[in-house]
């Protein structure tokens, strides 16, 4: 089966600087794929290469089974590095211009304006739009061709919480209709809520490519009991010292969540006062910083 997006050893260098290095990416059909990475990781450069806007220094891109070009791009909608339109034209006129360039009937414009809830402001000049409205117009432009693949670069930038929720719903609807979505983001919560699979990019390299669930795997049972050192010794005898670590004022116990009852009974039975016992799942942010070597406190 043809993959909507496939890259092989994709590389882009600017002089000595490698913006993207040896990137092997594959996005199956119908998936919402999150392209995650800090600013400057190479996400936008990769997306530009996918869309034929910049040429790779090395490697290969296959978009819907073909080289990026007018033929393959005819089935791709995209919003790259923020919305950009003609400020003196209305939202509708901007989309009509793009419909002409896309070879799409101008009647399609009103349909996509409706999808992004911009019909009421369609006659107003783009220059008067809020950032969120501009972003929605960008999404409308990406949907003009009724695409099989949608590539979105930071699609929720500038959106308020309601707008972000709307965007999530729209993207999910797209995926449900069989459209493949590739979106880049540096917002972990966004990726966590929208995406099926995630590729984490750092310094131009793909650090990992996995499902959101797998990325978050590796939870632990968090235990707060008094006295803590004695509780640690006691649990160490039961489960082995290597499966216990101290995390501030709590213990992290590397066991299955189903073991919580037994742990509680053992501690209470031994006379410890248990004040907290819960399954602690590492959030995506922690995993992300662990993968990219970033420091969450530095920002």
């Amino acid at each position: 089966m043809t993959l909507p997006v496939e890259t092989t050893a994709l590389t882009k260098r600017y002089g000595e600087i490698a913006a993207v290095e040896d990137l092997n990416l594959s996005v199956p059909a119908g998936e919402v794929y999150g392209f995650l990475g800090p600013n400057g990781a190479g996400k936008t450069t990769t997306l530009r290469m996918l869309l034929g806007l910049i040429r790779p220094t090395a490697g290969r891109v296959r978009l819907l089974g073909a080289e990026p070009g007018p033929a393959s791009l005819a089935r791709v909608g995209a919003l790259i590095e923020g919305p950009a339109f003609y400020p003196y034209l209305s939202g509708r006129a901007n989309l009509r211009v793009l419909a002409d360039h896309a070879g799409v009937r101008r009647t399609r414009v009103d349909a996509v304006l409706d999808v992004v809830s911009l019909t009421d402001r369609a006659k107003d000049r783009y220059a008067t739009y809020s950032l969120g409205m501009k972003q929605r117009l960008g999404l409308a432009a990406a949907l003009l061709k009724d695409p099989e693949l949608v590539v979105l670069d930071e699609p929720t930038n500038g959106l308020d919480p309601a707008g972000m929720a709307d965007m999530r719903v729209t993207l999910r609807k797209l995926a449900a209709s069989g459209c493949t979505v590739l979106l880049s983001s540096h917002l972990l919560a966004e990726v966590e809520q929208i995406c099926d699979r995630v590729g984490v990019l750092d310094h131009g390299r793909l650090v990992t490519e996995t499902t959101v669930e797998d990325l978050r795997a590796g939870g632990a049972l968090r235990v707060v009991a008094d006295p803590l050192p004695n509780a640690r010794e006691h649990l160490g005898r039961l489960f082995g010292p290597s499966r216990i670590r101290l995390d501030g004022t709590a213990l992290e116990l590397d066991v299955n969540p189903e073991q919580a009852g037994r742990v509680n009974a053992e501690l209470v039975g031994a006379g410890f006062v248990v004040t907290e016992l819960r399954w602690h799942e590492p959030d995506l942010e922690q995993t992300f910083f662990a993968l990219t070597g970033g420091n969450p406190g530095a920002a």
Partner: protein
Amino acid sequence: MLRDIRAELTKQSRRPATWLLLAVAVVLTLTFGYAVPYAGLSGATSGPPGSGRGLAAMLPDAFVGSALGGLPIFVGALALIFGVLVAGSEYGYGTWKTVLVQHPSRVAVYGAKLVTVALAALAAVLTLFATTAGASALVASLEGQTISWPAASDVLTGLGAGWLVATMWGALGVLLAIGLRSVALPIGLGLVWLLAVQNLLASIAAPLLDWVAQLQKALPGPNAGALAAAFGASAPGVEQVVGAGQATAVLAAYVLAFGALGGWLLQRRDIT
């Protein structure tokens, strides 16, 4: 490519700057072709030397020259600015990516821009012809002169010449915009060349250095001036340094060269 042309025409026709440039071209042409000369003519208490010639240049049978008089200099500058806006604004607004991800080929989009520049040049020259014809008829009426129009063939060849000159400057604007990937710098450099360097070469360097005088025969400005002069235009920068045939060939070569070079640059460069 027809749909790309329609898109480009929509962009430029709805752009206020397009109409402002056209209005400025008309006002300047009428001001320096009719208003100022006529004021000088009617303000003179006695017939100064050449006053008869001044009136003759404003009458209907000479309107083609008046319409073309500004093209080598200020109308040319406005055409260059228009060309820069057509291509350079895509960099300024960041819309190259917005357009190109809709899957037209770069060649088609670029070709549509050149066609739009050529159509706008034609519209501008037609407007200049219409307004100068009207002004010349008004002068003839005010001065009680017989209204005698030039032959249709002269008007048509004049239109063609004006179109070629305006398109050449517009194509240079497109090339500068793509070469420099911006708006302000191409306009600045284009105007410095068109309004300053060309005049310095013609008035200072060419009389002193023979090779500069020869070089003038191959530069766009002097050839534009020579073509306008062939239709009776009289203005700064309008001088018959070469014949009309050679000027036409040189200007057409420039249109092709500017167009090809701009397309080659756009095709091979990354859109960042």
